[in-house]
C-alpha cells in the first residue's frame, strides 16, 4: 500500500510535494507525478497506487473529478487533496473527514496527514462513505458535448457523441465505433473521457469507453473476468476488475 501518486499542473508545487513526501515518508514509493487530471486518472488505473495526492484545479479533469472517478473503483485509493485556497471545498472536506493539504506545504502538517493515512490503512477502512455525495455536490455541471471530428481521407466527419456506441484505444489511435461503421481519431481516450458526459459514457476498461444506452448485459466469465454484450452487436467488450463494481445488480 505504500505507493502513491501525485498530481499538480504546476511544476514547482509538484516537485515540492514530491520532495517533502520523500523526506517524510521514505519507506513509500512515488509511482507517478502527473501534470494534469487526465494523466492522473490514467496512471492511477494503470498503477493502482494506495494514495493519490491531487491538486484541485487541474486541466483535463479537476482533482475533484479524478477523485470521484477513483471512488467508484473496486479498490479505491485514499485521496488527499492539495490546494492553494478554496474555502468552500475545504469546509466540505472537513465535514466529510477527507484529508487535504494547503499550499505552500508545511512539513508538520504533512506528517499529521501521513499519520492519519496510516491509521486508516491499518483499519483497512474505505474512504469516507459520503465521499461520493460530497464530491457530487462540489463538482461543477458537465460541459456540453461537441461533435467528434474524424478524418477519413480528405473528408472530416462530424459524429455526435451520443451516436457513438463505444470508444477503444488502439495503439496510437482511438477507434470510434458507431452503428454506421468505424473511424479512427488521434485524440487519446484519456483526453476524450474528460470531455464526455460520465453519466452516458462509462469507462469499463482502461482502454474502453462505452455508451451505457447500448449495453445489453454484463456477463461474468469467472471470478476475475467479465464481458459486456451490446444491443444488436456481436462483439463483446472486456470489463476490467477495477470497473466490475459498476455491474453488481440490484
Amino acid at each position, binding site marked *: 500500500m505504500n505507493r502513491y501518486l501525485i498530481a499538480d499542473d504546476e511544476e514547482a508545487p509538484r516537485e*515540492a510535494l514530491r520532495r517533502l513526501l520523500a523526506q517524510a515518508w521514505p519507506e513509500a514509493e512515488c509511482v507517478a507525478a502527473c501534470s494534469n487530471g487526465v494523466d492522473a486518472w490514467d496512471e492511477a488505473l494503470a498503477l493502482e497506487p494506495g494514495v493519490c495526492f491531487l491538486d484541485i484545479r487541474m486541466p483535463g479533469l479537476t482533482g475533484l473529478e479524478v477523485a470521484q472517478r477513483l471512488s467508484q473503483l473496486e479498490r479505491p485509493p485514499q485521496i488527499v487533496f492539495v490546494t492553494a485556497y478554496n474555502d468552500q471545498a475545504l469546509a466540505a472536506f472537513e465535514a466529510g473527514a477527507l484529508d487535504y493539504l494547503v499550499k505552500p506545504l508545511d512539513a508538520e502538517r504533512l506528517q499529521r496527514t501521513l499519520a492519519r493515512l496510516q491509521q486508516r490503512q491499518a483499519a483497512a477502512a474505505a474512504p469516507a462513505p459520503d465521499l461520493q455525495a460530497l464530491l457530487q455536490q462540489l463538482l461543477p455541471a458537465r460541459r456540453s458535448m461537441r461533435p467528434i471530428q474524424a478524418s477519413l481521407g480528405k473528408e472530416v466527419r462530424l459524429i455526435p457523441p451520443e451516436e457513438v456506441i463505444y470508444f477503444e484505444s488502439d495503439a496510437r489511435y482511438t477507434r470510434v465505433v458507431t452503428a454506421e461503421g468505424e473511424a479512427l481519431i488521434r485524440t487519446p481516450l484519456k483526453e476524450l473521457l474528460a470531455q464526455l458526459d460520465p453519466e452516458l459514457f462509462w469507462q469499463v476498461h482502461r482502454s474502453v469507453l462505452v455508451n451505457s444506452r447500448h449495453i445489453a448485459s454484463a456477463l461474468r466469465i469467472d471470478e476475475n473476468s467479465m464481458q459486456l454484450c451490446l444491443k444488436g452487436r456481436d462483439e463483446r467488450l472486456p470489463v476490467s476488475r477495477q470497473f466490475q463494481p459498476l455491474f453488481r445488480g440490484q
Partner: protein
Amino acid sequence: MTDAKPWYADWTQYFCPGPRRRFTPAEMLRGGADPFPVGIGRYIGVNALVMVVAFSLALQRGGLAPQLFGAAVILLTSCIALAFARSLWAKPTRLRLNLGGFGLMLGVGILAGIGSAVLEKVAGLPPRVGGVIAGIAALNSAMVAVGWYFLVIYRVQQIEARLREREAQDARDALQRRLATAQIHPHFVFNTLASLTHWVETGDARAAPLLKEFNAYLRATLPMFEREQQSLREELDLVRHYLAIMQARMGERLQWTVQTEPGLAELVLPPGSLLTLVENAITHGIEPSLRGGRIEVQVQREAALARVVVADSGAGLDCPPDEGLGLSNTRERLLALYPAARLQLTGNDQGGCTATMEIPLP
C-alpha cells in the same frame, strides 16, 4: 444635534410647527416608497363611529336634528382628516401641515358655530347646547391637527431613514464592485508563494526573478483599492507583472505578448479592468487547457477609438462562457467612466476567447 441650540433659535416652530426638511421629487422616489399605513384609516373610522354614538347619547334630549347635525360634523371631519393625512403622506411639508391644520380648526369652528346658531333658531335648542356642539367640534379638529403633526414628523423621519439606508447600500455596492474587480485572488497569491517556497528551499535560480515580479505586482495592485481610475500604462505594467509570474509558474504551457501603441499611455481606465480580462483568459482559457496556450494583449488606435484586445488560444470550451461576476463588474465600471464604451467577449474559430474593450477617444 439640536439640543445645543438655544430655545429661541428656531422661533418659527412656535407659530408654525413641523419638520424643516423638504424632500425633492427624486428623494421622494428613492425614500418615500412606503405605502400609507392602513391602520390609520381603521383607527380613524372606529373613532368616528364611537364618537357618533357618544354624541347621539349626549344630545338625546335635544331631538333628532342636533343628533344628525353632530354625526354629520363628525363624519365630515373624519373624512377630511383621512384624506388630508394621505395627502400629507405623499408630500410631507411644514407649510401644508400648518395650512391644513389651522384651516381645519377655523373652518370647523365657524361651521359648527353657524350650524348651532341655526339650530337654536330653527329647532329651538337651549342656548348652552349649541355652544357645547361648537366647542366639541373645535376640540375634535384640534386633535386631528395634532394627529397630522405627528404623522408628518413620523413620515419625514421615515423617509430620512430610508434615504440613509439607500445611501449606505449604494456605498456597499460600489465597494463590492470595486473589490470584485480590483482584488488580489487568494488562489493566485498562495500558488505563487508555493512555487516561491519550493524554489527558495531548493536554491533554484528562478526564485529571485519571481519574487521581484511578485513584489512589483503587489506594489501595483494594492493602491488600486483606493483609486477610481488609473492609466493604461499602469494597467499594462500590472498585466506584464501578472503574466511574468504566471509564466514562471506555468513554464512552457504559457506564451504571451503585450503590444501597445504610443500615445495611448495616459488613457484612463477603471483600476484592474484590463487585469481582470487577462486573469479570465488565464483561468478560463489557459489553465483548463491540457496543452496550455497563448495570450495576446493588444492596444490599437482606430479613428476616434482605443481598442484593447485580450485574446487567448484557450481551452476550446464553450465560448463565450456565461459571463462571470468579474466581467459584468468590469463593464459596469467602464461604462461609469465612459458611457459610450463597449466590452464584449467572443469565441475564436480555433477555440479560445477574445475580450475586446472599446473606448471612445476625446
